[in-house]
């Protein structure tokens, strides 16, 4: 346990000093910070248009933002987590896995009384702590900005849902960290190590959810979206493949936690897929053997 904590502490020290994770971190925090503002601007713009439409007598429909949860303003954060957050997690994972090989300190580390699982678990714990600190900071920024925009502090229920949302976000990012770590361990070159998980992320985030919808040739050729026949081949394909997209499951879970009325789905199923992605990655990671870790340094 001591060696795990030593590795975790070293990970935090190293992350504090490295430039690329720092740049990504700044971009991520800034984007998430302005997401509440973007949500507020959307609300204001739509409400103004609705007001003018009502005044012109063109509609009697209620304001679409009436009774919408204050957490609505955090919904853009979901997209930034899937895009910038996941990329940041991959880069941090790859950087961490390759650090000792690049610095040529791996033999020194492995000549100390530390097992390979403890070495890797320490890295995972260290990065997890780093991500937890970042997400805690972002959660505070979100809570504060939403409270300012709505003119009232978020209540205990909404605050708890916000915390739950960031806890799920941490799990998602940790899943991508394990992907980055594995790629860093198994790749001989840093470019390959970055390219492989980013390609996987692209497939998971963009391809899997679209197969069976955008892959429908009619919808690709026709600017007017076609209605997919329920029970048809494309619908079945989409039903089978879309749950495999951990990012889509995160969007679903986040929407349900944040009370977005447009999102439907099963929260337990979405959480299960996210936890499963992280657990599988962590198990494969911790099963890595010593020879694999030494990799290119092998005599």
């Amino acid at each position, binding site marked *: 346990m001591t060696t795990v904590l030593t590795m975790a502490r070293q990970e935090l020290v190293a992350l504090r000093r490295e430039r690329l994770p720092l740049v990504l971190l700044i971009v991520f925090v800034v984007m998430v910070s302005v997401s509440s503002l973007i949500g507020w601007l959307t609300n204001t713009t739509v409400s103004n248009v609705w007001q003018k439409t009502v005044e012109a007598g063109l509609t009697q429909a209620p304001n679409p933002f009436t009774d919408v949860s204050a957490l609505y303003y955090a919904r853009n954060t979901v997209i930034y987590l899937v895009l910038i957050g996941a990329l940041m997690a991959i880069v941090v994972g790859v950087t961490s896995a390759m650090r000792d090989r690049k610095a040529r300190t791996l033999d020194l580390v492995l000549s*100390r009384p*530390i*097992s390979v699982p403890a070495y890797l678990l320490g890295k995972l714990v260290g990065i997890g702590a780093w991500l937890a600190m970042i997400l805690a900071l972002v959660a505070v920024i979100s809570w504060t900005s939403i409270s300012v925009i709505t003119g009232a502090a978020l209540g205990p229920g909404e605050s708890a849902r916000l915390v739950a949302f960031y806890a799920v976000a941490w799990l998602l990012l940790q899943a991508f960290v394990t992907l980055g770590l594995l790629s860093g361990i198994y790749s001989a070159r840093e470019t390959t190590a970055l390219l492989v998980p980013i390609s996987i992320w692209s497939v998971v985030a963009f391809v899997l959810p679209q197969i069976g919808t955008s892959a429908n040739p009619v919808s690709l050729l026709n600017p007017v979206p076609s209605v997919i026949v329920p029970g048809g081949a494309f619908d079945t394909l989409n039903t089978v493949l879309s749950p495999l997209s951990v990012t889509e499951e995160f969007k679903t879970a986040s929407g349900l936690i944040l009370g977005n009325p447009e999102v439907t789905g099963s929260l337990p199923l979405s959480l299960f897929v996210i936890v499963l992605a992280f657990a599988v990655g962590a198990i494969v990671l911790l099963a890595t053997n010593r020879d694999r870790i030494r990799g290119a340094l092998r005599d």
Partner: protein
Amino acid sequence: MTDIAIRTTGLSKSYSGTAALRNLDLTIDSGEIFGLLGHNGAGKTTTVNLLTTLLEPTAGSMQVVGVDTVADPNGVRRVIGYLPENVQFYDNLTTMENLRFFGRLSGLSQPDARIREVLDYLDFTGHDDQRVGSFSKGMRQRVGIAQAILHEPSVLFLDEPTSGLDPEGVRQLRDVIVALNRDLGMTIFMNTHLLSEVTKTCTSIGILRQGELAYQASLAATLEAFPGEDSLEEIYLNIRSAPDS
């Protein structure tokens, strides 16, 4: 406490079917400064990597201070220090940050006081908060020695410790090696190409040839056994070029 620091029996290591080390039987007493000589590819680094538990043998066994390296690798790691050839550190971290990490990995819970003590012993003070990336080869080597002895190991493994050092650096390192052996009673196992260093530093030597131990004896016995040779270099070359028996 055993009187034998290192013992290998039938130690072999192959890489993809190619033998790098064959049937190495080696015994090194505690308190020795042992120099392992051999040409490039003779198996010196493989031997050190096996003894430091970085590699597992293909066949045979080895004990360091009586601890089996395969059965209890962490037990061995606790009693050894290791300085690899061309030692590197985390360049963007300071001397203290690097040594704290390796100290904690070696089991020191509060390493700062011990680090200052070791740096003082090695006459390397005033660089605690400097980043290692700015250090010369000789300075890195000092930090390397420091990390290797922080936990007061019984056996210190040095892989080509003088490689790349200027003559002043070589002399300083030699003094450190002798002092560690004399003051702290450490058994020292070093790979080297520099025969002059062996003469000035080691108490016993071994010569590897094509993965096999061709010779092992104390330095004094070696010089006595080859009275006709003017230098250790000649002895080394004669043993190396001798036909396989």
